[in-house]
């Protein structure tokens, strides 16, 4: 099968869906001729022109509001906010408007928008361009939240996001964008709420999110050689969440490590741990371990950033602690 980059997979999904729906548009700063801050939109401006690949001013509330207003009046929109760190600038539009419109007005208007945003660090970009803020959005009814970890999933889930009648926070990770992977050329989609077991194992369940899925796989491969069988579970979508797959894995292994790049405090891992404790407590043979960033903003030099962010060593150590 052919391999393409994660960013190309996203672009393909958008192009294919925009060809099907003339009222679907992409809006954000730099999405036009420039090709996107992360080079996701690439040549889309040349294909669809200014009206459908719309450069916006640096106005996050305006961009998301524009997407919402268009979505409730017969269009669909993908709004790119290139860094998750900038989402606070349009948090009100996402949380108070997009997430609530369908509910507030008793089902009169739904908001089919995708907010495409890059989370994550390890890129030496300092405090305001490196955060993983996905847990904020898991706390808001009305939103869907996804974090695909491979090009295959990026394309399949972007198509699902575009065709979802609700607002979807679609997070990619900056380190994933240039990553290559197999992506079929034929049409496919990946539904939300279905976790993927990236590697089967029997001794411990390692739940990993986004970029850390790859660290998890690397650790699992290493430990396999030491005779430790790690099952790597990638939730892929955080809301809706595939509790069933996670709980079945935990029931099988009896041990759990949850690894994400976001802070441990208030992170998605806490919710996952609580679900496991609530619904599979009797199956646990060890405490649930959570791996995430240490409690500090993210500094830029590698010596500091790597100290704050979780590493493969941290994951390995956590697994060995509970075996």
């Amino acid at each position, binding site marked *: 099968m052919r391999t393409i980059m994660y960013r190309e997979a996203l672009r393909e999904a958008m192009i294919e869906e925009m060809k099907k729906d003339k*009222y679907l*548009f992409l809006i954000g700063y730099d999405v036009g001729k420039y090709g996107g801050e992360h080079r996701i939109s690439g040549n889309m401006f040349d294909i669809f022109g200014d*009206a*459908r690949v*719309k450069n*916006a*001013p640096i*106005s996050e*509330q*305006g961009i*998301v*509001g*524009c*997407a*919402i*207003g*268009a*979505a*409730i*009046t*017969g*269009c669909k*929109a993908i709004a790119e906010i290139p860094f998750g760190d900038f989402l606070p600038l349009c948090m*009100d*539009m996402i949380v*108070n*408007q997009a997430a609530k*419109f*369908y*509910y*507030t*007005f*008793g*089902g*009169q*208007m*739904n908001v089919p928008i995708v907010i495409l945003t890059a989370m994550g660090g390890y890129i030496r970009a300092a405090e305001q361009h490196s955060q993983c803020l996905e847990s904020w959005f898991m706390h808001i*009814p*009305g939103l*869907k939240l996804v974090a695909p970890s491979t090009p295959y999933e990026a394309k399949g889930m972007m198509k699902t996001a575009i065709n979802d*009648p*609700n607002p979807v926070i679609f997070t990619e990770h900056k380190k994933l964008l240039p990553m290559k992977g197999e992506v079929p050329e034929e049409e496919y989609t990946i539904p939300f709420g279905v976790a993927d077991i990236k590697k089967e194992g029997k001794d411990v369940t390692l739940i990993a999110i986004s970029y850390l899925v790859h660290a998890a796989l690397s650790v699992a491969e290493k430990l396999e050689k030491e005779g430790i069988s790690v099952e790597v579970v990638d939730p892929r979508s955080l809301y809706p969440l595939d509790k069933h797959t996670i709980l079945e894995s935990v029931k099988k292994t009896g041990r759990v490590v949850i690894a994400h790049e976001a802070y441990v405090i208030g992170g998605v891992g806490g919710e996952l741990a609580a679900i496991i404790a609530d619904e599979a407590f009797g199956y646990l043979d060890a405490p649930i371990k959570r791996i995430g960033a240490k409690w500090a903003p993210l500094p830029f030099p590698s010596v500091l950033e790597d100290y704050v962010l979780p590493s493969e060593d941290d994951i390995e150590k956590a697994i060995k602690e509970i075996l």
Partner: protein
Amino acid sequence: MKSLKDFDREIILRLYETMLKIRLFERTQARVFRAGEQEGFTHLYLGAEAVATGVCANLNKDDYITSTHRGHGHMIAKGGDFKKMMAELYGRSTGYCLGRSGSLHIADRSIGVLGANGIVGDGNPIAVGAGYSIKLRGTKQVVVSFFGDGATNQGTFHESVNMAASFNLPVIFVIENNRLSCGVPTDTVCKVLENLGDRAVAYGIQGENIDGLDVLEVYTTAKAAVQRARSGEGPTLINCKIVRHRGHFEGDIDIRTQEEVDAALKQDAVESFEKRMLEEKIISEKDVQEHRNRIQKMIDEAVEFARKSPLPKPEDALKFVYAE
């Protein structure tokens, strides 16, 4: 001031009818709310009647508006249904939003009302999006965003007017300038309160500063703005100077002195228009009473409808979180 005779009689009567509907609806709402018949909060449109009336008289059913926390007047001017409105205010399942959202959040998508909004200034970016959608779909619709003087100091105002201007969208931004931002006299936090319409210059669009208590001035100014928007000439910013008859919300303290409130109450768009109509013999005293009685009866029926309507079921609170 032009004579009323310079205007089409039909339009005069239509404007009068709408203003009276808003006035009597809001007076009734004040009464039943104060009597404790409803839960929650309610912000009344009293004092602003001429704005929604004069602007919406230029709109078609499929044109859009975004509204505010003080949105009952916008709904009525756009053709909203008294019964569904009142039922919503009473939190009944027959209301516009199934009784779940109340006074702050009435909407009727079928007549282009994209929602009253509880966040000051949030209608503006949404109106920009509706304008963008109109352009993409290639229709001749327009969007009106209503908001207060307080909202002009929100970042959303700047972002939205700039985007609408630079994308040349059919959006009309209408400031309902009652000189109060909740409990703050806006002139203590804004140097250009009187002529907020002048801010249009900064965005390269047309701006107007008008007497928002004169429904005909609102009507004619909005007419020109709507025509420009429909013909692809982009947005307009209209600053309508009005007064607020009541507190920020019903039951709130009023930051103004009693003298200031009394002065505001004397500036009455509805009564002054009625007086002009009588003076120019467009209508008679008898007509006035007939109109008032007829409309009040409709509103009373709406109140009765609301009172008799069922409450939502508790479990309905979990419906419509996600669209299928």
